[in-house]
């Protein structure tokens, strides 16, 4: 992250903040979309989070920590938006699968479908840790810092999330094996 850009935005430079938005918006959107599993809601949350980031930027003491700070605001916006949004409860919108993936075999599609359903059943706080760690690539210590939680909590949330997804995955494999009459 461009420290100078953060500092200029922090001092009220709207042009600098616009540049900053262009630099971080895709990353933040990707995180929100994966946590919420709803592209439309993720766009709404991203919008709210970016405006909050703008408002609170003067409070950011260390520009080098901008990304972690922004992640925390984004994740809190996800927490705030999810239960209040009717779409959250009613939508079962499967994310679009790229054309390049169309050649995937049935097993892969079945696996992803099971993971999708299992992921949707996870609490938001577990999803956030899982996405920040496995998608954004943050080490657990950085995940804990970004979310403002102890490392042990981040570790346990990741453990529970992984265990749930692995359980769903194994069950899917077992069902498919039974269907095909071969051992799992």
């Amino acid at each position, binding site marked *: 992250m461009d420290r100078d850009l953060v500092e200029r935005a922090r001092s009220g430079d709207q042009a600098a903040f616009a540049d900053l938005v262009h630099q971080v918006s895709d990353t933040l959107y990707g995180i929100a979309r994966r946590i919420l599993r709803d592209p439309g809601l993720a766009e709404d949350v*991203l919008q709210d989070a970016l405006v909050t980031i703008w*408002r609170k930027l003067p*409070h950011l003491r260390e520009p080098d920590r901008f990304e972690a700070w922004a992640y925390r605001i984004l994740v*809190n916006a996800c927490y705030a938006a999810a239960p209040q949004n009717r779409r959250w409860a009613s939508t079962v919108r499967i*994310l679009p699968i790229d054309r390049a993936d169309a050649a995937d075999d049935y097993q892969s599609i079945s696996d992803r479908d099971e993971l999708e359903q299992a992921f949707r059943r996870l609490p938001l706080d577990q999803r956030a840790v899982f996405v920040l760690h496995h998608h954004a690539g943050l080490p657990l210590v950085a995940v804990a810092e970004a979310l*403002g939680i102890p490392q042990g909590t981040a570790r346990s949330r990741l453990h529970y999330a992984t265990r749930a997804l692995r359980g769903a995955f194994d069950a899917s494999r077992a069902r498919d094996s039974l269907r095909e009459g071969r051992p799992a």
Partner: protein
Amino acid sequence: MNNDQAFERATRAFLDEGSDRTSAATIDAVLLAVRTTPQERDLRIPWRTAHMSTPMRVVAAIAVVVVIGVALLIGLGLGTGSSTVGGPGGASPTPAPTPSVPPPSPSPQPSVATGTASWTTYTSNRYGFSIGHPADWTERPAVSTWALPAGNGSAGAGGPDDPMGTSTEGFIAPGETVLVSAWSAAVAPGTSAAAWIQAYCPKATSPCTGIAAQSAAVSMDGHTGSLVRFGDDVEAFFLVNNRMYIVGEWLADGDPVIAAYGGGAKLVEDFLSTMHLLPGGPAASASPGPS
């Protein structure tokens, strides 16, 4: 391919699917909102004096001394009748019984909001109190102990209003729209509440003249204190047994964002109505503030 590898591959594919490109409409909406959305004021700027030149430090120190001296001389109404101007420096408030902030207009009763019945109670052993907060607010516990720095000293990382701050107990509304902070600090024996607030003010908020006019009496756990409407925040102060307890929110009383809570003062009073001091006081005493 074993099951572990298959699981990793499936998880990776699951996480990688879809596009992360933000729509232009979203970006445009954000940038449009930014044009009309003011940034919050960083209340800790006055604390960050590391880059001040020596002459500027001297000027700032003199200004603080003059403000305190003038405030005491003209009797802002926050001190007790027994207070007198200190020594030649004028910066050492005269000892006064505590609490020493007489209410400009005593409240007939504490502001107890009926809505606080469902609040969650948070206990701060660090600062020696328990306090409630709305159940859907996020707690941000303090991980270091706050102390009012003497002179031009820096507060270090984390001031009372800093969302990433670590030295106050923080309670954050959904969406991070509102932050309420609560903490306490040891006060040098003999320091009056008025003197402490006057010393605190220029380092944390503004305006620092006419504080009495912006004050109202409030109560907390049977103690009387002052609720001050500063320019961009509302804070309540209670001096009990040589310890100042502070609860504040960091938006102007009339800010539209906080209107949903009845205004900044109402929100602080609601928090105060749930606050109780721990019988044993804080687990670890903070450093005394300047007197």
